[in-house]
């Protein structure tokens, strides 16, 4: 099997959100159209999390550095990690999620999705989201359509030709500083290790915590990251785990359609929230600017803005932007 990866270098990312917007435009994903319909995030990060219409966001987090000026400003990529052994695909009863033989990415066939949301429960990174009345899966497709179809195109009425237009994922294509790349996974890993070594040894501004992410985690993912600062500051779990119960879900795969949905509903919310790393049932504390796990009280991440004096604890519970109808 061919083995490709998206490479993300947080130390080159400028957090311009070109990837966020390019993903929306290429995949024809909507954004709120009502007047002032987006929920303010009080942060450089927006939206605060993935949602039914958003497959990738840039994560912002600022922490104190040990210098007189400035901060350690972590710019993270929050999207599907395209695991080697994707728990989402292994539990998907309808075949909507499956490993792509050409790249190893987790491909999405939205038309096959039955809205059972098994995948959300199984995902160690809490990536899957859903849209529409049928709760269709919304997650990064790896732009396999581009990888399959991109290539040289004739331009300007046949007066010229381009080289490899449209041939890599839209987010990668759109990255101005070249912080995103796409290629054979071993090549991407080589780049990642080279970069980490460079960052650690940098003469003026060394990064002792720099690391490669996605090589060993979960036996490897098809997104390989260079993280300049500690892993946690990128909104990523240091040790992502697949919940053992995903095996049980895998056994249910023969069930399809309504039967599967009913099964999940029957298992109840406790089952869903009992699984692995998650973002479900989070509380966003606007005053402290933190995302808190309602069950454990754990602070899942802290945004780039810092808290002011203690205020009321009446933050919104849903971090997703309020949706309003189009005009």
């Amino acid at each position, binding site marked *: 099997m061919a083995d490709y990866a998206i490479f993300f270098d947080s130390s080159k990312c400028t957090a311009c959100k070109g990837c966020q917007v390019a993903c929306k435009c290429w995949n024809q994903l909507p954004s709120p159209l009502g007047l002032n319909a987006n929920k303010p995030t009080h942060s450089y990060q927006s939206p605060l999390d993935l949602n039914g219409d958003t497959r990738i966001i840039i994560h912002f987090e600022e922490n104190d550095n040990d210098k007189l000026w400035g901060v350690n400003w972590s710019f993270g990529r929050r999207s599907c990690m395209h695991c080697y052994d994707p728990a989402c695909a292994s539990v998907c009863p309808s075949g909507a999620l499956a490993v792509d033989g050409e790249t190893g990415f987790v491909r999405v066939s939205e038309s096959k999705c039955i809205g059972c949301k098994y995948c959300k429960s199984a995902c160690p990174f809490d990536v899957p989201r859903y849209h529409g009345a049928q709760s269709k899966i919304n997650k990064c497709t790896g732009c396999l359509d581009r990888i399959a179809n991109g290539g040289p195109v004739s*331009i300007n009425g046949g007066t010229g030709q*381009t080289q*490899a237009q449209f041939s890599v994922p839209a987010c990668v294509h759109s990255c101005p500083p070249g912080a995103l790349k796409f290629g054979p996974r071993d090549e991407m890993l080589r780049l990642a290790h080279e970069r980490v070594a460079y960052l650690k040894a940098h003469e003026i501004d060394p990064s002792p915590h720099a690391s490669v992410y996605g090589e060993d985690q979960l036996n490897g993912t098809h997104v390989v990251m260079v993280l300049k600062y500690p892993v946690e500051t990128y909104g990523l779990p240091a040790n992502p785990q697949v919940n053992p119960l995903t095996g049980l879900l895998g056994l249910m795969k023969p069930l399809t359609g309504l039967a599967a949905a009913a099964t999940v509903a029957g298992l109840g919310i406790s089952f869903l929230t009992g699984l692995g790393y998650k973002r479900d049932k989070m509380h966003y504390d606007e005053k402290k600017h933190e995302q808190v796990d309602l069950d454990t009280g754990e602070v899942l991440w802290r945004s780039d803005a810092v808290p002011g004096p203690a205020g009321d604890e009446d933050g919104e519970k849903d971090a997703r932007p309020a949706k309003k109808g189009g005009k």
Partner: protein
Amino acid sequence: MSVEITRRGFLQAAGLAFATSMAYELSNQSSAFALDTDTEWKLVNTEEYTNVCCYCSGGCGSICSVRDGELISLEGDTDHPINLGALCSKGAAMFQLRSVVTEDTREVIPNPNRKTRPMVRRPGASNWEAIGWDAAIAEIARHVKTTRDASFITTDQNGVTVNRTEAIASLGGSQQNTEECYLILKSMRSLGLVAIDNQARV
């Protein structure tokens, strides 16, 4: 630079299954609707035209994909030596200057924020009125002549031929193409305007 994936290699691999499903999808779905990227190639039968971004002065190249006279996609020009195909969030959103996606049906519609018809706001009015192009141009030209003729100065107090009007001002040019700048400049200056400026000051 990313490692290049050849189109041929993947096409061979993706092969027949892809072509079959695509034919099915195309027969069932309007291109205006959201894509199932697993099955449908967005740029079937498109023509590509290059352009240059309308935001900062980087001059990043873009490629517009057009089918049946409608813009299908806009993204960076891979060959462009400055941006190598990349576009920042603003540049990547240039498609939306013309069209947006609805939230419920994910249908591509004209951007409702854009105003594509001439309008006039009469003195004291609280709202716009529709006006045709011919009428708008005729009214504006009449205004120009009236204001210019009432304010035109042929010679100043020192007897210098100055041929100017100080009653009309013009601002703009940084968003237009250079040829348009020249036409705007030439027409405005030829009317006698001295108050000509653009975004360079701001």
